[in-house]
């Protein structure tokens, strides 16, 4: 039995007919064709599939499509601001926050969520916010630096407004 849902995905309204048990992760990757959101474990333990659901970070491998009617979803493909990289993307590029890059989309969505809430996080707050996003390449040092730089950049933007 399929269900009809309407979602706002990266700012665009979509109407879909899907099995209600289809995972949001599979919906994005297999049905809609947005493969930027990654599958690392499928059990909510690694954070690679993090997307923003109504502004909050979720593991999309733990969300069922049946719950999504009316939801606002932002994925890595929706992070750019027009043609420009979002400051968190820019900072990850500059600081070397991505190596193999597989955890990067989830890491960036989690970072965006952190900085939406708190534009001046301490190092400890950054470490805590990202502790559910596993990375096997970087040792996190460059990621934490990138988040600090992005936060400073966003504060500057805010001050300039």
């Amino acid at each position, binding site marked *: 039995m399929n269900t009809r849902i309407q979602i706002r995905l990266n700012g665009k309204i979509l109407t879909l007919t899907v099995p209600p048990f289809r995972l949001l992760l599979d919906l994005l*990757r297999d049905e809609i*064709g*947005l*493969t*930027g*959101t*990654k*599958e*690392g*474990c*499928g*059990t909510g*333990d*690694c954070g*690679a599939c993090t997307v923003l659901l109504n502004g909050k970070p979720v593991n999309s491998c733990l969300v069922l499509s049946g719950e999504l009617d009316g939801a606002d979803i932002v*994925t*890595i*493909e929706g*992070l*750019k601001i027009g043609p420009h*990289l979002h400051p968190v*993307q820019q900072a*990850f*590029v*500059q600081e*070397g*926050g*991505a*190596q*193999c*890059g*597989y*955890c*990067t*989309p989830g890491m*960036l969505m989690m970072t965006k969520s952190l900085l939406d809430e708190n534009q001046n996080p301490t190092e400890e707050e*950054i*470490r*805590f916010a*990202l*502790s*559910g*996003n*596993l*990375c*096997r*390449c*970087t*040792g*996190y*040092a*460059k*990621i*934490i630096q990138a988040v600090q730089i992005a936060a400073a950049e966003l504060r500057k933007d805010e001050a300039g407004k």
Partner: protein
Amino acid sequence: MEELAVVGKSVTRIDAEEKVTGQTVYGYDLVLPGMLYGKALFSTRPHAIIKRINTEKAKNYPGVHAVITGADAPWIHGETIKDTPFLAQGKVRYVGEPIAAVAAVDEDTAQAAVALIEVEYEDLPAYFSPEEASKPGARAIHEDYPKYHKADFIVTSPLPNVCEHFKLRTGDVEQGLRKSDLVLEQRYRVPAIQHAAMEPHSAHAMVDDSGKLTVWVPNDAPFRVRTETAEALGLPPEKIRYINPYQGGGFGSKGGLKVERIAIALAYHTKGRPVRVKFNRQETFVSTSTRHGAIVRIKSGVKSDGTLVAREITIYWDAGAYSEKSATVCIRGSLPSPGPYRIPHVKVDGYAVYTNKPVAGAFRGYGIPQAAWACEQHMDDLAKRLHMDPLEFRLKNIFVDGDITYWGEELHNVGLKETLLRATEAIGWGKTEKLDPKGFKIGKGFACISKPTRTPTTSNASVLVDGQGKVTILAGTVEIGQGCSTMLSQVAAEELGVPIENTRMHPLDTDVIPFDSSTTSSRSTFHMGNAVRHAAIHAREQLAQMASGILQAPEEHLRFSDGKVFLKKDPHHAITLGEVIRTQLGPDGVVRGNGSYTYELGKDVDPQTGHSDHASAFYMYATQAAEVAVDEETGRVRLLRVVAAHDVGKAINPLNCVAQVEGGLAMGIGAALHEELVVDNQGRVRNPSFLDYHLVTSLDVPEMKTIIVECPAPDGPYGAKGLGEPGLAPTPAAIGNAVANALGIRIYDLPLTPERVYWAIQAATD
């Protein structure tokens, strides 16, 4: 020498932007037209005869296209020992071994059909320890081992279940021990751990009407796996094509035929339709490969002045159920296991031993981390008994330029001493800055390593320059996250004098790209860096010849920079590379430069003595140091900071070098403090998930300081050596030494979990 323009600069990774925008297509993301979905059935027994398999119900399940067992895929593969069936042949040797596979219209259907396959087993006695499995009288896990096809260098043993016996014999170890003032013998253990690359394993395969097999897989050695596949299937290599999508980390796990062989076997039964096989995280943990668990017995003799006289080492490498890369891990991990020290009398026996456990294979460091865990803690214990400072003791014995190693090679360009001095200085060795806080003991420790690279090996490359002045690099090095595409672009940009934005790497496809041995063993910067450099120089020479006519100046008066050719004396007299090509070859002209590099002097070690006068194209040297606070009440080891000093020869991209080391450190910290693939007494992995297998998180890494030491290798590109692997090799031993320094207690087994440390403290207090 002219100043370098791009090499040596921390340029931004050329693949960064596509990675932060989610555009990168990894193996796990790949979609092929008309593809079917494969799933495998895995053994639930550690060692058993397969009495019967019934696939009838699975075959009749709606949506199923193929159900296959070992009878339908009767192929055996193996890089050095051909012992591994594509699907189990009559028996299983570990829990997690693929037995059968299904291809269906979607993954859920395939999984449902797999669940309908019935297997009847007859259990056999199983071995879970390499010491037990190699005891005289133990039952053979591979009855046909003597008949297996093996590489020439494999040394067999009369002991049961030994698939490779490495021997190193230098001097007379018995006599050396007799002449020593102090003899110490210890036994260290390292458990299996898993690579846990963030991208799980997957492969896509298709057989077309002409019989050509194409495999899409992020494999770290596309040419080597093509050879292995060709040998197994009995096909000429040109009938096989490997295409590499991006790899989401590998660390040694994504090489050889793992998930690949299931996709390939199914592709022969799907009438030309491609098949995708994805391993989930649990399957990735259990059925790909692990790092070798190891048991290391080490015995040393020293003079009372601290001079090392003799060292005897026996290592049991737990190969798991199949040989995979065990033979070469055994050889290259055992060879330098006595450490980077001058020792006149050395005897090493390394045994790679089959057990009924998940298959062990290549893992970043290739045996060096296990050996270092033993050797470097043993060094500290020797120093303690000699009443010597561990730094002074090492300085007295470490490799320096001109030394002849115990494997018979004269060393040059040894940056080890500088790494040792700088790492110990940075950690404040010998200084006590703070008193132990209440309930904690503070300690410092350090450890050194040297690591060889696989030798001899070959890299080839081509560099294309087109009429727009754009440069395309054809190189078989796999971007596994290490930043090779940026490094190679820097090399090409340097030699052609073009902005790095004008360079790109061609996607890796064995039908197009020239041969490269592998993206392993930290060999790429040195070997492929040289090949791309030669190719770029070859292209530049052709361009110089053309430009010389246009600018009416001899070639030696020309200079390449900013995408142009100048007259050295008159920089205004210039022409762009694109114009040179367009003028000489027309608007669609292309200049192609070719390059090749092999370390010609390289020679495998002698199988009987372990000797070679050129065992490695270069050596990597490192010292790492750690400061810890141990909670005496709970046994928890808190890392306060770590320092890593690495001799890289020449940092082509300093930022990426630091990034490699930091990633290595985090992996080493995990191995030191919490990682262990736990196998129970029935051969089942008990923690195959990120919930139960504790990967290092952002909360687990302390302050990290990386020191880049540059002791150039004359044969390396711009003096570069390699760096991919050593970042994690000395880390556990450095932490172990810091814990021993804090507590005054030596712990011999990894990982240093709170429980293990707690009981060690209790045992010492009793």
